[in-house]
């Protein structure tokens, strides 16, 4: 407690005040004994006009004394003196400052996590990491991913700028700590680097004089995700220990996101490669016959399922091409794997494609097993151009018979019938011969189409009748248009409801003699 009069002369200082302000003795001028901030606060409290004084209860001031910090609460007395109560608030202040920093850092970490977690794309994660680090932790930052062949993928960013991507053929061994950080072994802490020893590629454009550099590993999920390089310009304060610890916290999050993205990319590319084998092919014109196909798997987030189709062009011009459309029992990926097996087997059996029964019998035998009765149904169609017409041989193996759409809109069912394959020891088949005149179309479909449930009133089956009606409107249309029309109608029919795999393949005899040369696959103009 310290009392001073209106003339800013100390009247009294108790023992505690004496310890803080050793020069504060009765009679000494405040200006000689206490810090300036308290002198000016005293002056305000003792101003001539009462209106200029702080109101009662207010006027608390705060300021440093040596390396500590004090709050001073004034109590004016009637005799014109002011009693100053001094309270040491150093710890309180430090705590508040620390809290503030913590809050900022937490907010930053949350924001980085949100940004990093939103993407499973490695490039994007690297961009975000570099940018966040440059804007909040340093003057510039580099994110270096483990080598991709001989090159290191690098994303660099200068504070306030946008990240730039590069690949550099450099030796990570040349930078102390970098090789270990990229290998994830042995475990290394953040490492200080002498700026003068930094190779030029480590310093992004836009950062002239280098002050300090820290390399921090980006730890991943069991695998290293890369390294984070933080750079500060010359003149900026160097990294404190606290900042370094914090950078590691950030690096842990960034590393986790980057390695999740890397794992995802690896998985996705494996899935992609496997899936490519199972996806239905793009169909086009072959040897003067038009083909188009469309497929929609039952689960909309999957791209494959239990329906399949293929067109195998004949080895020799003039020979028939073989079209297969089928449906294996079951759903999803498991069913898709079985379609792969069937498609491969049929491919191997192509030399006997002139004998559908033999082909199907051999396939039947190869699929038979005692554990289950997982079967497939399918239609084989051999199609060959014959003048302007197309000659078809159609064989159903337990599958809905193909529909023939004539160019005048009539729809007929091909007379073919046979046993499903893969469940019974022997099969029977009946092959139909059909001639497609120019503009005629043959439609192969799976029961996902004909048995699609839905409709405006819900619960109704799309049915073969409706399919025939829809087809009769498609007379003489290009093959793709027929496929698209059927797909659109059935998709609208099922709406958002669940449905089975749906596949449709259309074989058409072109209406005109001109063949489009636009698909890049046509062997040349066909003149009949």
């Amino acid at each position: 407690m310290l009392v001073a009069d209106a003339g800013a002369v100390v009247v009294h200082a108790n023992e505690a005040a004496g310890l803080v302000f050793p020069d504060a003795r009765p009679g000494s001028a405040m200006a000689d004994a206490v810090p300036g901030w308290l002198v000016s606060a005293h002056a305000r409290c003792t101003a001539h006009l009462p209106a200029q004084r702080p109101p009662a209860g207010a006027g608390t001031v705060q300021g440093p004394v040596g390396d500590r910090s004090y709050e001073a609460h004034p109590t004016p007395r009637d005799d014109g003196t002011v009693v100053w109560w001094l309270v040491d608030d150093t710890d309180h202040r430090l705590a508040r400052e620390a809290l503030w920093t913590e809050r900022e850092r937490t907010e930053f970490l949350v924001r980085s996590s949100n940004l990093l977690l939103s993407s499973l794309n490695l490039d994007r994660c690297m961009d975000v990491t570099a940018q966040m680090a440059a804007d909040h932790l340093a003057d510039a930052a580099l994110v270096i991913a483990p080598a991709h062949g001989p090159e290191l993928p690098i994303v660099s960013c200068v504070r306030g700028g946008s990240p730039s991507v590069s690949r550099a053929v450099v030796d990570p061994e040349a930078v102390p700590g970098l090789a270990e950080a990229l290998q994830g072994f042995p475990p290394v802490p953040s490492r200080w680097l002498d700026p003068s020893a930094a190779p030029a590629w480590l310093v992004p454009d836009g950062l002239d004089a280098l002050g300090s550099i820290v390399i921090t590993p980006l730890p991943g999920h069991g695998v290293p995700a890369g390294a984070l390089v933080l750079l500060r310009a010359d003149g900026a304060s160097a990294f404190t220990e606290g900042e370094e610890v914090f950078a590691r916290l950030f690096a842990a999050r960034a590393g986790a996101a980057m390695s999740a993205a890397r794992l995802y990319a690896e998985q996705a590319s494996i899935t992609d490669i496997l899936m490519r084998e199972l996806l239905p092919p793009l169909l086009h014109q072959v040897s003067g016959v038009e083909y188009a196909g469309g497929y929609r798997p039952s689960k909309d987030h999957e791209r494959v399922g239990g329906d399949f189709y293929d067109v195998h062009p004949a080895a020799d011009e003039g020979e028939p091409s073989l079209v297969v459309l089928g449906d294996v029992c079951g759903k999803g990926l498991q069913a898709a794997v079985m379609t792969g097996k069937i498609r491969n087997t049929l491919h191997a059996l192509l030399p006997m494609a002139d004998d559908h029964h033999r082909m199907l019998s051999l396939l039947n035998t190869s699929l038979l097993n005692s554990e289950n009765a997982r079967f497939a149904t399918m239609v084989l169609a051999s199609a060959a151009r014959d003048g302007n017409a197309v000659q078809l041989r159609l064989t159903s193996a337990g599958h809905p018979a193909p529909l023939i759409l004539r160019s005048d809109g009539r729809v007929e069912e091909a007379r073919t019938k046979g046993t499903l394959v893969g469940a019974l020891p022997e099969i029977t088949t009946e092959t139909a011969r059909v001639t497609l005149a120019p503009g005629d179309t043959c439609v192969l479909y799976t029961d996902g189409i004909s048995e699609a449930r839905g409709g405006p009133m819900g619960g109704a089956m799309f049915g073969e009748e409706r399919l025939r009606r829809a087809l009769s409107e498609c007379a003489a249309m290009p093959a793709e248009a027929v496929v698209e029309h059927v797909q659109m109608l059935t998709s609208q029919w099922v709406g958002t409801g669940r449905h089975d795999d749906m596949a449709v393949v259309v074989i058409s005899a072109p209406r005109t003699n001109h063949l489009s040369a636009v698909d890049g696959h046509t062997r040349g103009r066909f003149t009949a």
Partner: protein
Amino acid sequence: MAFDEAATVGTVLRALDDGMAAEDLLLDVIASVQGRVGREWAANSITVAQEHAATAINDRAVAAVALHPSVHVAPTRGRVTVACVDGEWHALPARLLAEVLRIRGWRVDYLGAQVTAPHLVAHLHRTGPDAVALSGSLATRLPAAHATITACQAVGTPVIVGGAAFGPGGRYARLLGADSWAPDARAAADELARGPLPRPRPGHQAIDDLPHLNDQEYTLVARSRPRLVRAVFAQLEKAYPAMRAYTEMQRERTAEDLSHIVEFLAAALYTGDEDLFCGFLLWTAGVLEARGVPAASLLPALELLQRELQDFPRATATLRAGAARLTVTPLTAAGTAV
């Protein structure tokens, strides 16, 4: 309308050989033909199947342009994913945009029609494009469009949208929180060329765009669509004995019309915009008149729907507004609203 594929493709290839710019050919010739196809369909002068045939031929024309040697461009810009809203069948506008962007030097992933949000998001994770261009023509697919826009933004990819679905001046684009909107392919390409769209901030919640969805009216109406159609159909039959003599085809047409009414009602509830519903009703009235069915026949259906949905204030208000608009808008002899 004649569907001569060979002639169309031949014309297109000749134009390119004669030095016409591919972008102009795509947008000023093919797109305008497609626009006419759309108008003919809207005016009910061609069938849906014919529309598909015309579109398939236009699609081949686009393919012919894309494969022409004069059109090969090495990518010099960033990467863009072009897709249609899930449930959208009109893929040609998206295809045209994809080709235009390719010509302008973008690396384009064209995903086509019927792209589900999960499939699109997986693609975005894999490829990390600078933007997604989303095309939609059917207003009834706006809820799906919203889901897709939000999903793309959630993985940090900005979305530019376009197509008739997004309403005059792109009003639904803003409503659904799209990062940008373009009236046509050229404008979309220009917009993307101006500079990268800003990355969307994470943590955006779809419901923030449309707080009115809190009343659940959209969900309940959309979910009970088949039930509503059945109920209204049955009561219409009771009130109009003539309907009992309808052929199976006529009955199905009627049920389809009712189903569309409910779909557009749901879309209007989703967007909170009565005009969306009224616009559809006027168009339907025009088509019905062209089919020789008086537009007034829509009124009893609206009345019955109102009764079915009496607990839903927004739905009934929308239905009332639609009925009012039908009764005050005279239709021309051709069946188009004036």
